[in-house]
């Protein structure tokens, strides 16, 4: 369970978000909606530990009753999926997937895990292709599975569907939801699109500009 208490975000001279609190259960997706520029993405960066130094944020973040916000980036075990799939262009799809698998796992098992993921994506033949040879929808799915292969404790989604065309979007959404439930981790989705929020079958939180 991921819970955020009294999150406040501000720039040097302006408060962007004030006292935002919510909790997300395992396997559930909470959708966060609001006007652009309000700091939704910055909330995600705060949770993942990469907040821009020009912003200041306060608030308690608990993951299964352990405080998260004062931990180092490497110990947070966070998965973040953004608009851009960010697949490494100089690695094959298989290498991209293998990249994410934790190093403790032995070699043969790593291969098996990566190939299982490819089976799930229905593209075992694309193992040795480069990311640019895949369609946008395929890239988005590979990116999700790559994130999940790293075994994160919670998942952050920053408008991951906005670059996809509408027909594809529906498929990718269902795929994402199914995978999150399968992984059984809390997920926070930031979006502009009310359809996204609805498709995630979870709670939806709308934030407005503070003051």
């Amino acid at each position: 369970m991921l819970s955020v208490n009294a999150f406040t975000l501000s720039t040097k001279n302006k408060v962007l978000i004030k006292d935002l609190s919510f909790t997300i259960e395992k396997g559930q997706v909470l959708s966060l909606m609001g006007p652009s520029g309000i700091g939704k993405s910055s909330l995600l960066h705060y949770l993942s530990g990469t907040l821009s130094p020009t912003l200041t944020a306060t608030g308690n973040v608990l993951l299964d009753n352990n405080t998260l916000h004062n931990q180092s980036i490497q110990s947070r075990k966070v998965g973040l999926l953004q608009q851009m799939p960010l697949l490494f262009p100089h690695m094959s799809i298989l290498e991209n997937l293998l990249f994410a698998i934790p190093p403790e796992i032995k070699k043969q098992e790593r291969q098996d895990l990566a190939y299982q993921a490819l089976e799930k994506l229905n593209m075992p033949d694309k193992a040795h292709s480069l990311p640019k040879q895949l369609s946008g929808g395929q890239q988005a799915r590979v990116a999700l599975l790559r994130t999940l292969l790293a075994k994160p404790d919670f998942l952050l989604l920053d408008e991951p569907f906005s670059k996809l065309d509408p027909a594809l979007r529906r498929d990718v959404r269902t795929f994402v939801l199914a995978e999150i439930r399968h992984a059984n981790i809390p997920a926070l989705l930031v979006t502009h699109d009310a359809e996204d929020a609805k498709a995630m079958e979870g709670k939806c939180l709308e934030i407005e500009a503070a003051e």
Partner: protein
Amino acid sequence: MPLKHTKWITVFIALFLVLPIFMGLIGTLLPAFQFFPPLGEYTFSLDPWRNMLAQGEFYASLKLTLISGIGGPLLSLWLALSLLAWGYQRPFFKKIEAFLSPILAIPHAAIAIGLLFLLSPSGWLIRLFSPWLTGFERPPNWITVQDPYSLSLIFALVIKEMPYLLFVMMAAMKSIQARETIQACQALGYGRLTLWRKVLIPQLYPIIRLPIFIVIAFSLTVVDLALVIGPNTPSTLAITLYRWFNDPDLSMRLMGSAGAVFLMLVIVFTLAGWEIMHKLLSHLTRYERSNGRRCGFSDNLLGSGVVLGLITLLSAFAALLLLPLWSVAKRWRFPDALPSTWTWNNIERATPLLLELASNTLIIAVIATLIAGVFSLIMLEIKRLSCAKSATPSEHHAFDWLIYVPILLPQIGFLFGLHVLLIYLDLNGSLCAIIALHLMYVLPYVYLTLKGPYLAYNEQYLQQANRLNYYPWRHYVTIKLAMLKPALFTAFAMGFSVSIAQYLPTLIAGEGRHSTLTTEAVALAASGDRKKVGSMALLQALFPVIVFWFAQVIPSRWTKWRLTIKCFFSKDKKCSA
């Protein structure tokens, strides 16, 4: 790059950039006023200046320096602007663009030697028209190169600098929205050359001011080019100073130092004068620009510049083609346009020497460039961090102007001063000293080449990699640097060719104990052994071209090759690269 202690690293690198030059300048400035402890001179006086001003050679040299140092850049700028105005965005101009990079990459000494082969009285140009047109059965008694008016030096400077300015201008065209401007002006009925003259060049000039200044400073102080193709007795000021510094009579160094200080003042005044002339010119043409005339008389200036520019480019290529020709010529008597008998013997006979020179050259170039690459990456990372931290990212970090110091200052101004420091440190004549001095010149070019792509890199890739698996150093190399491969390779090629071209730093730091292709080719240029010089200059020209070619070819195919090799060795039968 998970850098720590960025403040200390910044200070360290800034010191590295500034300290040697500062020491070098001090080492030049003090002797210029008679203070030179190694010779037992502990009192300040103006004697070196008086001695210098009493030399008739000084005034003759100064005149030649001013003629070539101002004439060269002026012509280069004119021809480059003309060519750009004429050809910009025309399909065949793309082909000329492709020819530019080899000329840029090739050391100027090699080009100068090729020009010598082309233009000298027994050169290829006169051979081509002899005897059927000129009637010459033997080389005429003309002075076509190393002429007392430094015209051949100016020509060599133009050949080297026009492509550079053209290259810089084409990069700058994007930032002034040239295409839209051209369309708008053409819709108003302005002719191509007129709209360039009235609208685009005034916008372009401020962006390329710094490269022009670099070109001027270079032309006023160039040594190797002037040694090969410049006038002698009297020669340009830089060469005269160079001779004074190398005089067996060590007290001549005092006069040389005074001259070096004077030469730096010459640069300052020339640049100031150039800027004043520019202000004046743009003031005078201001009215003319808005008088509404759609074409004008001065368009011819650009038109004739195009013709001269093309001739210049053509002769640059002819000069380069003559290098391999001479290195395989056995018998090539005067009026023949081509050798009558060919041989590999020249190269074979020179092989032991060439191997030694080439290995020296390559060792110095590769090590200096690799160090420069690491330094540049650290500097750029610090710059990136400081940009990311501040809310209002300022364009200028201290590095951005410090890096220009070695390029803008004349080598002759501080290298001899630095040499004294090297002697104190007991580093004189060592390979380390040569590499360190090369580094000073390689670093700026590597840094400037890497800067754009490095700062434009999408940092999210690296962040995502570290989120998946936290190995900041490893991922910096395997993700960020791997993705920046094309820029890294280009920067390497750039630094490499800069290092290959260095003459004075190699000579001063190495004290002649470590010869490179460049120092040897320049030393032999006057010897008349064209076959030997041709082979050396050819190798000197060939290395940068090959490295630039690699830099083009390798990065784009790297991943494909890597995956193919990986597949070849893996048991996975589904591999299909």
